[in-house]
């Protein structure tokens, strides 16, 4: 009986900590006494969150979506009996292991370069009978729904956990897509004159307290890739790299890039190929 009580207490403490951290909006750090001191140090909230994230990575709720995606991949059938076993992610029909870190790549069947998200949606439409216009109606998760394709992406991404990014740059279309992506990265426009590079093209910069990786450098380019798709604690749903690109352009004050568009594929090709050789740790967790 005594043992039972202590287990209960331990559990209660854990969930309580969870609730506080996960559901309250992150507040700004309390102002310290001096102005100059914090210039380099990460603020308390960021440091706390990093600790929290480490604890959670073992039990990342992303796994729930991974499981759902796996179920769709392995068991769901399209109207004419087709399944994702026919989907070629670049390594052969039905091969999932390691496929995520080797996209974007050129796919001969469609004659174009596709990033992982685009390819997976393509397959779900082609084999499982999903309607592209339905997917486009809600491409990204919100707090009432994480769409099926996002779960499948999470599953596929998890099957590349701890593998090196190896985006091919052999086919002329792959090279061309990389080069166009680099141009998009550097392209300043809009009311604020921003490009991706305004924030992500130099070393050691921050927005507020957020460190900005220099995405031109391989060792830092991985940071745009790592942790996606990610489980967002505020809201409790999965977000993909396509979402991340979309939100970057929002903050860049650009108009909205169409979902699964060539521009985003090109940008992802540039950024991911730049990170080639770095190790991907699988679906992540975001605040």
């Amino acid at each position, binding site marked *: 009986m005594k043992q039972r009580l202590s287990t209960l207490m331990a559990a209660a403490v854990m969930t309580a900590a969870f609730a506080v951290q996960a559901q309250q909006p992150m507040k700004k*750090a309390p102002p310290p006494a001096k102005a100059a001191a914090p210039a380099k140090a990460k603020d308390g909230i960021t440091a706390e969150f990093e600790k929290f994230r480490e604890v959670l990575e073992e039990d990342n709720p992303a796994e729930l979506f991974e499981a759902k995606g796996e179920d769709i991949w392995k068991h769901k059938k399209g109207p004419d009996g087709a399944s994702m076993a026919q989907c070629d992610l670049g390594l052969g029909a039905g091969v999932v292991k390691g496929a995520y870190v080797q996209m974007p790549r050129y796919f001969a069947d469609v004659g174009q370069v596709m990033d992982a998200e685009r390819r997976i949606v393509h397959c779900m439409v082609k084999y499982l009978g999903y309607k592209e216009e339905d997917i486009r109606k809600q491409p990204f998760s919100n707090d009432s729904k994480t769409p099926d394709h996002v779960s499948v992406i999470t599953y596929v991404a998890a099957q590349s956990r701890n593998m090196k990014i190896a985006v091919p740059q052999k086919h002329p279309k792959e090279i061309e897509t990389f080069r*166009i992506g680099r141009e998009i990265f550097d392209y300043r426009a809009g009311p604020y004159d921003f490009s991706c590079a305004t924030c992500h093209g130099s070393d050691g*910069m921050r927005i507020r*307290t957020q460190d900005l990786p220099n995405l031109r450098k391989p060792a830092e380019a991985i940071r745009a890739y790592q942790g996606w798709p990610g489980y967002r604690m505020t809201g409790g749903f999965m977000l993909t790299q396509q979402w991340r690109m979309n939100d970057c352009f*929002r903050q860049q*004050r*650009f108009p*909205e890039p*169409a979902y699964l568009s060539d*521009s985003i594929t090109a940008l992802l090709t540039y950024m991911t190929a730049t990170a080639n050789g770095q190790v991907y740790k699988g679906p992540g967790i975001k605040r």
Partner: protein
Amino acid sequence: MTAMKTTILCAATLACGAALAEEVRDYRAEAIAMMKRDFKTRGIATADRVHEDGLQAICNRTSDHPPKAIAERLERDQMESIKYPPDGKLMGDWKAGEKLAQSGRGMTWSDKAGVPGGGNCYNCHQIGPQETSFGTIGPSLYQFGKLRGNTPDVQKYAYGKIYNAKAFNLCSAMPRFGHAGALTESQIKDLVALLLDPQSPVNSK
């Protein structure tokens, strides 16, 4: 005739097409054409924003390092376009300026039309000493007025810089807040006060 045939034949095989293309292709132009196709109006963020203006085009083409003569000429154009307040008063309320400096809102597709935007200042600059969450893309502005005073010339410089940073440095990373209509005249005045008012925490000891 023969030459044309060769070209067509050549283009028909991929490897050959790529080899040809290598020399003549303008990836920048292709990127722009692609973005014009892919980017759509949403809310206040209209599709035409993806078109570069003349200044952006020069900076884009020169990787933000335009030849000196061009830079000087274009900076002069930008300078001439700055509209100073007709009443000649350049300093507003530093407290309102601090609030504006804190706000990162404005001009995204999730911002509403007609709602005034923020200055986004702390995103990139250290400003008031009490705010420790500041970015480092721009230089620190702490003690801005203390170091420079607040003579009419300094006020004019601060106002002009916020209104159109490109008048001073053609390919500066800083937005042209007045030029773009992102901040109003009175908002810019409040920000000038934040930087220059002796009472502002920016200039506290």
